[in-house]
């Protein structure tokens, strides 16, 4: 295997969805456009098909391609948006540590290293929009000290709601040993919320209430009460049209189409 091939395989700069230059000639008259990449932070192996795509739940004996797959390989992707003076991340993936191995994942690589392959240093990142605050989407905020975090007010309120809900079956923390039991806040380990709080403490956070344009043409849209209470989408203008990043608000093409 050549060094180049090895790099492409192991470094996980998985998929360049679009690489649109922002040269002056390519900027349409009606507004700016941005270069956009999708970087694969890791892959969760053998995730039950129905876990993220209820319409694709496995049905024994089914011959439908929608329902005959037991597991699928779930990529953890990070959107990279570059234009003007901004480098914007949509989600930040998660960080493998000695205390957070996620042994059923493969090809994890540090996000700053992956960005380096695009010529972007961690310090260059100016803004981070998290689709939601779960640990595998907001897990590396501290690696980008200069970036301003954008999080929905409803996302924070949703976690607080669960914290204060007066019934033991609605818990803010995972109460099922050995796995998330789909309690409202089970995707938020204390460490992840600490990182969000760290951004607020450092004066590097904007709590968004609904829609907000964070750079010319780059617009946050709420997707509340979707995957989480305060999920948000990001609209980005490119030379081939608008791209919308959706995080887990849409887990399948069918979810977007339908």
């Amino acid at each position: 295997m050549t060094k180049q091939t090895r790099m492409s395989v192991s470094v996980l700069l998985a998929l360049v969805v679009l690489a649109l230059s922002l040269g002056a000639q390519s900027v349409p008259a009606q507004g700016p456009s941005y270069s956009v990449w999708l970087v694969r932070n890791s892959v969760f192996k053998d995730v039950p098909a129905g876990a993220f795509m209820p319409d694709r739940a496995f049905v024994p004996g089914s011959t439908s391609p929608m329902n005959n797959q037991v597991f699928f390989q779930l990529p953890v992707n990070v959107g990279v948006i570059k234009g003007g003076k901004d480098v914007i991340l949509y989600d930040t993936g998660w960080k493998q540590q000695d205390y957070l191995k996620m042994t059923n994942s493969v090809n994890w690589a540090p996000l700053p290293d992956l960005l380096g392959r695009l010529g972007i240093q961690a310090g260059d990142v100016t803004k981070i929009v998290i689709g939601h605050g779960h640990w595998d989407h907001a897990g590396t905020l501290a690696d980008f000290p200069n970036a301003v975090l954008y999080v929905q007010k409803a996302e924070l309120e949703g976690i607080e709601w669960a914290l204060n809900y007066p019934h033991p079956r609605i818990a803010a923390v995972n109460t099922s040993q050995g796995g998330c039991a789909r309690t409202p806040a089970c995707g938020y380990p204390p460490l992840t919320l600490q990182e969000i709080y760290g951004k607020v403490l450092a004066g590097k956070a904007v709590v968004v209430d609904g829609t907000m344009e964070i750079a010319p043409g780059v617009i946050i849209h709420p997707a509340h009460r979707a995957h989480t209470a305060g999920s948000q989408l990001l609209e980005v203008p490119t030379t081939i049209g608008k791209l919308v990043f959706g995080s887990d608000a849409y887990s399948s093409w069918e979810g977007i189409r339908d």
Partner: protein
Amino acid sequence: MSSQDVSSGSVVSTTPGEPHRFLRPKLLVAGVIVLALLAVLCASLLREGTIAGLTAGPETRPSPAPARPALAPAEEAYAQALWVIHADVKHAAHDLTFSGLRYKLKQADGPDFATRVLDAARTLDGAEARVRALAPPPSLNQVHAQYLGAVQLFQRSAAEMLRVTVGGRDEHLKAAYPLSLKASEELLRVGDAIWPGEYLPN
């Protein structure tokens, strides 16, 4: 010769007057029944094989997780007992975080902030006492110490946060932050040891 070669598979005919000639039709019926049962069995096995192929093929079978030694009964009992306390500790940790968040975002004033931090501190005090009361098996002494240390870090963080209400300076929040951060890492470290899979893709 009174009968044809059985091995040929043809129907065996018997010479009239043979003593067991009336047994032949019964044997035939029994044979048919046996064959029918075998056919049902084969069909079932084929179907099972097809389903197994669907669910256990190389594309769909879950990868075996790296082998981890199972917890011994005493370890399991300790993990279960600590898990109950862990829920309260995580809740208190979140309360500390949101106290700071709301205060910084000017969604809570000083008294509100203090009330909430004090509530979390009381929960942590209780948790510390409950953790101390546990008797870990020797193999989990380090885990036990780690967890106790994490709770104490949260307690120190809460105490530091409360000083904001006295001096009104955010520096106390900043001083408290790394304590909670370190404590949160320790919770995950303990979880990795005795509650693997606490957090799943989400």
